């Protein structure tokens, strides 16, 4: 480890290959795995790039997920009203508050329940493939396939009318943009809250058998301890809706693009759909779409790999860098769909590890092989440099994916 204090880095965001994280990460991981990081708000914190350190950080309860205390590593400095975590938004809460919310919703996302959704997801995927075939090439895969599938699935799971998708997809994508003004960001967030608040009231009046109604019923049941307020239910519903569609949509689209750019690998998955489970884990690792990592704040002074993190400093766990750590993944920059499953951190680690991961897995395991099998000649309809990459979004992926095939 170097003893001289090098000047702080800014979060690397410039990519030279659409599938690889920015190159600076490899250097940092090797030479300065716990690096000083300069934030847009003028503060200084830390950037972790090694798999081992990232895991240790995310499992350490001396670090908080409270956004209001943290600096954002990218974009403009946020205003306080943009940073507050509202009731129910458990992504940004610490235990014991986090535990209380998470316990109430976890039962809806168990492996067993998610696998039971498979037949319905297969139906939805088939329906989208039929629609693609009917319209004929070229198509934008994002609009016809990758966004509709997870959106419809999360709508049915929560009890959100799919007819409202244009609105909530637009608000979500505004909230996930880097370059958005404070005014636009707050307007989109308030619109989403108002929408979800109305929906919660509607479910109280006319319950159905989906998640939101079930959560309301469980809390209204006699003997329910500290039942959730409507504000909390709104926060939970909003988190699930927002986290439940853009993420999987981008994994499907970027995953398809990566597969088409690795023809031997996609041929293998097409011919051996039983590889889907491993293939999906490898794509999650390789692509790490939570591109700016997971952000935490030190609640007390903590030492990590010999460096002293002070209470109040923000620490960024670079998930994309950790997922390319050669100590953990031999030949990390190679996409190898047969790779022995290992411990990638694409879904995070610790108490906040993705609640929807089993759902995302089932969706990807069904959709990707089905797409490759239905259209064996699938390829880009434009040169790669014309594919608009989501460098400007918190969740990486493609804005559009124009594809064609032989009919």
């Amino acid at each position, binding site marked *: 480890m170097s003893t001289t204090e090098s000047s702080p880095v800014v979060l690397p965001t410039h990519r030279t290959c659409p599938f690889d994280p920015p190159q600076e990460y490899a250097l940092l991981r090797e030479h300065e795995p716990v690096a000083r990081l300069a934030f847009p708000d003028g503060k200084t914190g830390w950037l972790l790039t090694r798999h081992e350190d990232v895991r240790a950080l995310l499992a350490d309860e001396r670090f908080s997920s409270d956004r209001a205390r943290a600096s954002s590593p990218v974009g403009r400095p946020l205003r306080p009203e943009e940073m507050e975590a509202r009731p129910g938004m458990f992504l940004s809460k610490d235990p014991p508050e986090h535990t209380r919310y998470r316990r109430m919703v976890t039962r809806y996302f168990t492996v067993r329940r998610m696998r039971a959704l498979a037949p319905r997801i297969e139906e939805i995927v088939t329906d989208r493939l039929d629609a693609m075939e009917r319209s004929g090439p070229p198509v934008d895969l994002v609009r016809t396939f990758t966004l509709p599938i997870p959106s419809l699935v999360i709508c049915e799971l929560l009890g959100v009318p799919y007819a409202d998708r244009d609105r909530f997809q637009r608000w979500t994508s505004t909230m996930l943009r880097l370059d958005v003004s404070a005014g636009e960001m707050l307007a989109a967030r308030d619109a989403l809250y108002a929408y979800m608040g109305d929906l919660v009231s509607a479910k109280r009046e006319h319950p159905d058998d989906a998640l939101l109604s079930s959560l309301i019923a469980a809390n209204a049941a006699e003997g329910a301890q500290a039942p959730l307020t409507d504000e909390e239910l709104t926060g939970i519903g909003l988190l699930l809706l927002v986290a439940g569609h853009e993420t999987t949509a981008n994994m499907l689209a970027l995953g398809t693009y990566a597969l088409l750019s690795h023809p031997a690998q996609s041929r293998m998955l097409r011919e051996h759909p039983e590889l889907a489970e491993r293939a999906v884990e490898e794509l999650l690792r390789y692509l790490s779409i939570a591109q700016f990592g997971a952000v935490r704040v030190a609640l007390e002074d903590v030492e990590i790999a010999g460096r002293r993190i002070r209470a109040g400093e923000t620490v960024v766990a670079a998930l994309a860098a950790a997922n390319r750590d050669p100590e953990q993944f031999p030949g990390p920059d190679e996409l190898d769909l047969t790779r022995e499953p290992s411990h990638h951190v694409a879904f995070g680690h610790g108490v906040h*590890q*993705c609640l929807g991961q089993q759902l995302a897995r089932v969706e990807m395991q069904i959709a990707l092989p089905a797409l490759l099998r239905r259209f064996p000649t699938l390829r880009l309809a434009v040169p790669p440099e014309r594919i608009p990459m989501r460098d400007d979004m918190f969740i990486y992926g493609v804005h559009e994916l124009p594809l064609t095939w032989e009919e």
Partner: protein
Amino acid sequence: MKIVADHDRCRGAGQCVFSAPDLFDQSDEDGTVIVLDDHPPPESHARARRAARLCPNSVIRIIENPEPAHP
């Protein structure tokens, strides 16, 4: 081999059920881990170790050579 789960730490991420469905399940009530077989047969040992390694909250502990239980 013996499997012990520190139930309080579980946040129901389901990595254990995903890696070893014969050894783990999740409760219908709160999604937390249920150990189905805490003395797994040898052919399940590798999967049990993998589940322990993958658990994001260090819930699952593997005791490779448990003391024999007192009669």
